């Protein structure tokens, strides 16, 4: 089970200047870096696709609004059909890569890490 939230007092843990912050442990740093790297790459790819549609609509409208088959234009096909599939494909690739990384982590460290100390969360 994932950790369960428990009530806590608003006891300020205190603040430190960001420059005084201890570096994160290696394992968390690696997990975050891997996750951010994968997520960013997929997001950049996705947004290139997303913004390509209005850019082409406005700057290559002759092509985008020409017909593919019947009354279906290139832009309607991409916006109304391909883009819907793309949302799922990006999410599916992200989940698959995450599961792969998870196996890799568990293979390299043996057991999963236990929950963090220092915060009263159950």
């Amino acid at each position, binding site marked *: *089970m*994932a*950790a*369960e*939230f428990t009530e*806590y007092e*608003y*006891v*300020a*843990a205190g*603040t*430190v*200047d*960001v420059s005084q*912050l201890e570096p*994160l*442990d290696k394992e*968390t740093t690696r*997990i*975050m870096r891997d*996750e*951010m790297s994968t*997520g960013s790459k*997929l997001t950049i790819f*996705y947004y290139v696709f*997303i*913004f390509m549609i*209005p850019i082409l*609509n*406005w700057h290559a*409208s002759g092509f985008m*609004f020409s017909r593919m088959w*019947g*009354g*279906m*234009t290139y*832009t*309607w096909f991409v*916006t*109304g*059909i391909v883009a*819907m599939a793309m*949302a*799922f494909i*990006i*999410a*599916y690739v*992200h*989940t698959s890569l*995450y599961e792969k990384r998870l196996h890799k*982590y*568990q293979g390299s460290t043996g057991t*999963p*890490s*236990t*929950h*963090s100390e*220092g*915060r009263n*969360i159950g």
Partner: protein
Amino acid sequence: MLQTLLEPKMILTILLMGTIVYITYLTKKSSTASDYFVGGRSFGWFTNGSAIGGDYLSAATFLGIAGLTFQLGYDGAYYAFCFSIGLTLLAIFVAGPLRRFGAYTVADFLAYRFHSKRARLAAVAVVLAISGFYAAPQLLGAAQILSMFFGTTYEFGIIFTCTVMVFYVGIGGMKGTTINQALELWIRLGAFVLMAAAAVYGGLHYDRILAAINEFHGSIAGTAQFAKDGKDVAFDGASWTGTGHYFPTFWQTISMTIGLSLGTIGLPHILLRFYTNPSAKAARKSALMAIGIASVFFFFAVYLGAVGRAVFLSGSASPEVMKDLVAGGNNMVIPSTAQALGGEWLLGLVIAGAFAAIFSNLSGLFIASSGALAHDLYATFMRKNITERERVIAGKVAIVILAFLYGALGLMVKTASIGHLVALAFTVAASTFTPIFILGIWWRGMTEKGAIAGLVIGLAVSMFMIFCSSMLPAFLQFKVPGLITVPVGFLSVYIVSKLDRKVPADVNDFMRKVHSKESEAA
């Protein structure tokens, strides 16, 4: 009276209501706050995925997107495209970490990240603003359906829907809400599939109807008798299939794309759903399933909007349907088209589906907002040492308060477009919670002051640009102002955090918590 009760729309709506009552009765026992606010975190990925879909695919999708496509053509389809992006981004950056954090409400995240009551209070204000913005168009949809197909007044529709919500959420809590949302999603999907099948069976293939619409130019026969000015409605097919009419500039389009694509990450009722998963792995699977369902839904919504337009132009529909399409506004395209395609039974199923959409989404908004009022506001600021039972009772009282609040908002938006109102809610979410969650999960340097500044400035700027845009120069007037408000939200958090520099001393523990592998084996 008996004849009215035997009408398909009445039979299917009563069946839906009966099912809701039965499920709510079965799940009425919420002994703990965890039961009431997050369903005891006991639902698997399939139920949760269906419920996330049910929560996300509101009246804006079921009625609004098709309505916008019917009215605006390609620009309406572009709305659907923008709505389809957000869940994917949420799955990539937020779903897993949010579940690993594991709280009751969206405001808990901020309160815990900074040990801050002020941050919690700012978050509550934003939750209520976004939820109010989102609830009003759902109530509008319900009231319009009741008015058009059951002959009730608009005001009765608002009161009736709010009453159902008080019962549904107040008694069932998150457990009842989750099961109802999951079931209602499949009712809606069934209605869309049957409508699409009826359209294809009737020869209304996608490429053919788009061609027919594109080639139509002139007056639509048979509409004069229903039009207010007594003249046939004019229509230009070429502009309908083109762009640049509703969004007159390239930057207007980009602005909407940014606002809608990033809005989902900041929607409180969607974020809350990720707390109800038993594990982070289940949270990701739920998200993936919801994205798959949403993609299918948006595809059907755009197609059926085009089908509605083709039916309207052909004049082949019954006078009753033509009247609905002329007088009903774009929100009623799906019910009217269903009636034209499959008669009374399909109309009945679509009406039941529309109620399912509205109840699903509203229940999510009600439960998220009741958490903000009862758990974040009352239990934190007004009542120390509150018991579990009192916390649940507070949640139920909050539902009643919200019914009055949202009901009043519903009465104010009688003539608005559902889809566009929801788009504005997305913009507020994208400008407030989206920067907070993305930066809060991935950047240790975010400070309490930065987070509060981001929420306050993001909310203020987005509200100003929505309600007071006429005070701005023409180049800053956007239909959906995401291009301005989203960067302002992100920059507010970043700049204030950089200037403040005071991060919580235990921020590393927080990062370990939300990025740990602990829950993956679950």
